[in-house]
């Protein structure tokens, strides 16, 4: 198995299929840790991780926090409103201050695309992108892909349908990259204001009628309709959205029996998805949460577990590849 050489995880776009697979395989191992009596391994003992959420979040932040704690790392949480950014400090200076406190890992969520890359290029610490504007949300796509692979034992050849607000969705973009790199077929469904045809350039199909694609789907991934967008009138109203694109019981009857229903959360019951459907056997929404923890442990371990990054003359790699033949 070739070595992991990145100190950061900024996007899915720059990963190749082998790297994505490595993350998923590593996540399998870490998923098992959650079933132990003592849900902790010392892999990141003594490391410090900072959750730097300039754009707020509870779910993703908590998931990263738990992932780090299970790896025995120390965790500090910084939220935008309480940070010095409100006093006019630049992002770079704030991060440099964190590094001066010997932070080893910075998990950043920011409203500006490219913010994580900006930091990664300037800091020695590992930078993990927890969402940068509408650009990417790599760990979400990785946990979505993990969930699909966990159920179907493969990703290649599956037909994944993503429904909803694609235009503003970093989750959609990261998923499109991950799924296409692993050989899945992707179809996007939504109103033309939120799913422009231009997305076909990414190697995906765009459809307007959800009924047309549901019978062929292996996975339906429902994106959250973001109430905030309503003010800009991308479509007439939530009720209209549900009428045209919501996964109602009637539409769910069109699905294949083993089709998975996914949602990154938090769900708007009755809008993107019928309330009962969200709790049904086909829904893997809660599995996604559990898998998210395992995937984030994998990402933290790979990026920050060893010395990491581009250093190294390769001599240690031989030790690992040859098993216990040289040391240990």
């Amino acid at each position, binding site marked *: *198995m070739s*070595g*992991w*050489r990145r100190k950061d995880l900024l996007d899915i776009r720059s990963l190749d299929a082998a790297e994505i697979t490595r993350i998923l*395989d*590593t996540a*399998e*191992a*870490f*998923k*098992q*840790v959650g079933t*132990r*009596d*003592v*849900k*902790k*391994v*010392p*892999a990141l003992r*003594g490391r410090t991780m900072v959750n730097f959420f300039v754009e707020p979040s509870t779910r993703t932040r908590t998931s990263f926090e738990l992932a780090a704690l299970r790896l025995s790392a120390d965790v500090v949480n910084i939220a935008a409103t309480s940070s010095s950014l409100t006093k006019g400090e630049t992002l770079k200076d704030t991060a440099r201050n964190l590094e001066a406190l010997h932070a080893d890992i910075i998990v950043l969520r920011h409203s500006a695309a490219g913010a994580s890359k900006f930091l990664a290029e300037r800091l020695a610490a590992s930078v993990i992108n927890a969402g940068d504007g509408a650009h990417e949300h790599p760990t979400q796509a990785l946990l979505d892909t993990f969930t699909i692979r966990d159920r179907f034992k493969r990703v290649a050849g599956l037909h994944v349908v993503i429904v909803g607000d694609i235009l503003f969705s970093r989750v959609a973009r990261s998923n499109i990259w991950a799924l296409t790199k692993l050989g899945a077929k992707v179809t996007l469904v939504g109103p033309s204001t939120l799913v422009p045809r231009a997305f076909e350039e990414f190697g995906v199909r765009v459809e307007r009628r959800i009924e047309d694609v549901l019978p062929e789907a292996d996975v339906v991934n429902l994106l959250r309709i973001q109430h905030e967008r309503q003010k800009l009138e991308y479509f007439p109203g939530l009720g209209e959205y549900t009428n045209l694109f919501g996964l109602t019981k009637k539409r769910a009857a069109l699905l294949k029996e083993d089709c998975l229903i996914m949602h990154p959360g938090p769900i708007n019951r009755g809008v993107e998805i019928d309330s009962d459907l969200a709790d049904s056997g086909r829904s893997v929404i809660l599995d996604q949460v559990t898998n998210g923890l395992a995937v984030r442990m994998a990402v933290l*371990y*790979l990026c920050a*577990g*060893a*010395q*990491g990054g581009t*250093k*190294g*003359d*390769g*001599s*240690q*790699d031989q030790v*690992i590849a*040859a*098993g*216990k*033949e*040289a*040391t*240990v």
Partner: protein
Amino acid sequence: MNKQLPDNNSRETEGSVVILDHEAIRKALRRMAHEILERNESAASLMLVGIPTRGVEIARRLAEMIREIEGVDVGLGTIDVSMHRDDLALRKMPPSVRASHLPGDPTGKVVVLIDDVFFTGRTARAALDALHSFGRPSRVQLAVLVDRGHRELPIRPDYVGKNLPTARTERVMVRLNNVDPNGDSVRIKKS
């Protein structure tokens, strides 16, 4: 669980000396199986836990031999130690990790950890650490096919297939059917 490793083995084993062949390995494991049964009152309380990669295959063989000798099916599992290594921060790249699978709670059981080569003892220490997060065995013992000396911690195996004093710079290579092509062998190669 046991995937075949790629066949770059013939190049790697060039210039090495065979210390144990297929038959010698079989006899050594057979003796170890008898010893494990002799030193533990009840076979039913045993849990054999292999340390990947080759420790898993050895554990499998020992379990089979115990079944032949005593007619008992002992619990068989694998434990990943990579997450518990004491030298992770010193490595250039993160070692591969695998899921562990124990056949139940080890609390109250006699766990026999199994590996192919015992060297510094750090793998065994990591295995003890890993085991600790699963439960509290009543006893932990360590069985290895080869003890090559150069212990760095106050840990020693309870069952040894072959004592093999080596120089630090030499390489001990274990090859096992079901894991490697080209059959069973234990070899030494000067680096």
